């Protein structure tokens, strides 16, 4: 995102949007936006990445099921990122591919490729709040963080896992989001999201995501290699483990094309 747009937004927050948040303090909202903007800017320029991951789904009685997947991501500087996810297991869905174009202001675009019938299907926009392959992650949890997607408010300063953090409240601007708000624990040292608590549309706590095992790539970009999403209402959880992560793999933006889903393997 351009610096110009950010400063425009800062003006917007301070001048126009203030009235709609009676409980939030003007300064705390500005600070929240500043932190979010810095968080995003520290994570810009990574280019493209390719990951192999395992998702472990656990239900309330402790039964586990796993999914093996590969994810390719391509950073879009002016917009949300593009991502391609291909499943290797369970075997009955092997070869199923998701292509998503995440957008900051417009609805995301998503397609699914079903290899058995060779069919590419567009997915309805609202599906973003639905579970991703039966996991506790929603589609929207899998898309890239963009500053323009939320309104911000700094709630408090705290410590998390022994580190100083800010706790930021993020209110989604998208009506199709499944959340009324999220709370994000951002560490002060590296501006990494360490924990995210999600609230359902009625405002009740719904899920909590803990991000761990951060590793540094290209001397600049921190990536969690383990994250666990716990559903506070059902007791189910999903752990996402990154087994392998590479940057600068040589993929091009044009590779993220729904016409090319048929060749995804």
């Amino acid at each position, binding site marked *: 995102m351009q610096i110009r747009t950010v400063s425009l937004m800062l003006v917007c927050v301070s001048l126009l949007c203030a009235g709609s948040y009676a409980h939030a303090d003007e300064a705390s909202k500005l600070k929240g936006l500043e932190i979010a903007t810095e968080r995003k800017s520290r994570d810009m320029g990574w280019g493209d990445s390719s990951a192999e991951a395992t998702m472990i*789904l656990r*239900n309330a009685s402790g*039964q586990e*099921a*796993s999914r093996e997947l590969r994810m390719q991501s391509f950073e879009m500087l002016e917009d949300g990122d593009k991502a391609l996810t291909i499943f290797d*297991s*369970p*075997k*009955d*869905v*092997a070869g199923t591919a998701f292509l998503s174009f995440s957008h900051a202001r417009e*609805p995301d*675009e998503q397609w699914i490729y079903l290899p058995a*019938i*060779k*069919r*590419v299907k*567009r*997915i*309805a*926009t*609202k*599906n973003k*709040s*639905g*579970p991703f*392959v*039966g996991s506790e992650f929603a589609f929207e949890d899998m898309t890239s963080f963009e500053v323009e997607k939320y309104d911000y408010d700094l709630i408090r300063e705290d410590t998390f896992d022994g580190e100083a953090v800010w706790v930021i409240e993020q209110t989604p601007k998208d009506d*199709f989001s*499944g959340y009324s708000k999220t709370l994000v624990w951002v560490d002060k040292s590296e501006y990494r999201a360490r924990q995210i608590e999600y609230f359902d549309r009625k405002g009740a706590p719904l899920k909590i995501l803990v991000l761990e095992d951060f590793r540094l790539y290209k001397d600049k970009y921190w990536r969690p290699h383990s994250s666990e999403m716990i559903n506070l209402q*059902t007791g189910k959880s999903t752990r996402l483990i990154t087994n392998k992560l590479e940057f600068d793999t040589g993929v*091009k933006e*044009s590779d993220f*094309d*729904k*016409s*090319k889903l048929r*060749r995804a*393997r």
Partner: protein
Amino acid sequence: MTKASLDVRANIALAMGAIAGAFSLSASADVTFSGEFGVQQRYYLQDALYPTQPRAQGSLFLQPSLYTEWNEGYDSLVFTPFVRLDQEDSERSHADIRELLWLHAADNWELRVGIGKVFWGQTESLHLVDIINQTDAVESVDGEDKLGQPMVSYTWLHEYGSLSAYVLPYFRERTFSGLEGRLRPPVPVNTDKPLFESDDEESNVDFALRWQQSINSWEVGVSFFHGTNREPELIGTLNEMGEQELLPFYRQINQVGIDVLNVSGDWLWKFEAIYRAAETDNAISPAMGVPLTPESEAIDYFAAVGGFEYTLVGFMETTYDLGILMEYQYDERDNNFFAPAQNDLMLGVRWALNDQDSTEVLVALIQDLDDTNSRGGFIEASSRMTQNWRWTLEGYFFAAEDPLKPLYFVRQDDHIQFGVEYFF
């Protein structure tokens, strides 16, 4: 033993050989081996209409797949044979090569050579535009199983969409239930004596073109096909023994098609339409040894299907998705065996539990708007039992009282089918 059953056995033996070869090949390093097999049991809810038909029908299938790639993945080869063995119907016991396809992918173009499968279209209840592959009609009532199609296809990927050209050098005949099978007209279709309008018969070279593009919330496709109609006309005649038989007649046609999808919030709007025109208005030529059909069928016609899918995500504060589907089907032809959708409405509900086992249920009713007594319905459900096993349940229901309605022939063929499938 008849010629047909010999053919089937030869085909199946060939496929078994190919599968055995595939197994040994997959032992070498860079070949990925995967696939599925399954066992299914069908039970028909009513007595058979015709004396040779069974009440229950068991079957099994095997579909392994071999895949290898080279040249950093820009070249790949996939081989997917398929075999079905049916306990009752020798016509349903069959083998096919679903895919034997070399793909060369470049940045902005793709070339495919071999036997492949292509899907075109957007709607759920009918696939009008989809014409490249022949329907493997003995596999399932829904017509979604297809035979492998020999092809050379070139796709050009451009920011203004993808443009694909197809040369289809060999025609695949539709499969039909045999004498011991259900879901057929009173007289089985004799697939050993197909009739072709083209002098080149199944070697007639067909051509197709398709352009497809996503424009924001729209998906648009326009297609053209020139060649042998995948859907035969059924010609009633007498065989050498003086018995009635039905012969499939494959006409030369031109077809233009359009398919459109719009996504708007939780609504998906879908539409497909085709205009299909016969190359000539020939009925059957007497040279084929078959008398001319008395009534001339509508051979140039328009057909369309359109509707919506509305998804309630997190239905009733659960993690379930509930999709409501409604599609209107129109076909200019009246009372054609292959066109029950001449003025019909499909109403369906898709229920996805979003659980670990990916449990899904789809229930639909298709009502003929001209005749309240003519309707069809189906249920499809499946769920994973373990990482590799899945169960499936399908049920199809037909009702028709008017002998002129296409569903009249299968009015007693309501059935449920339970199956288990193993994926490897």
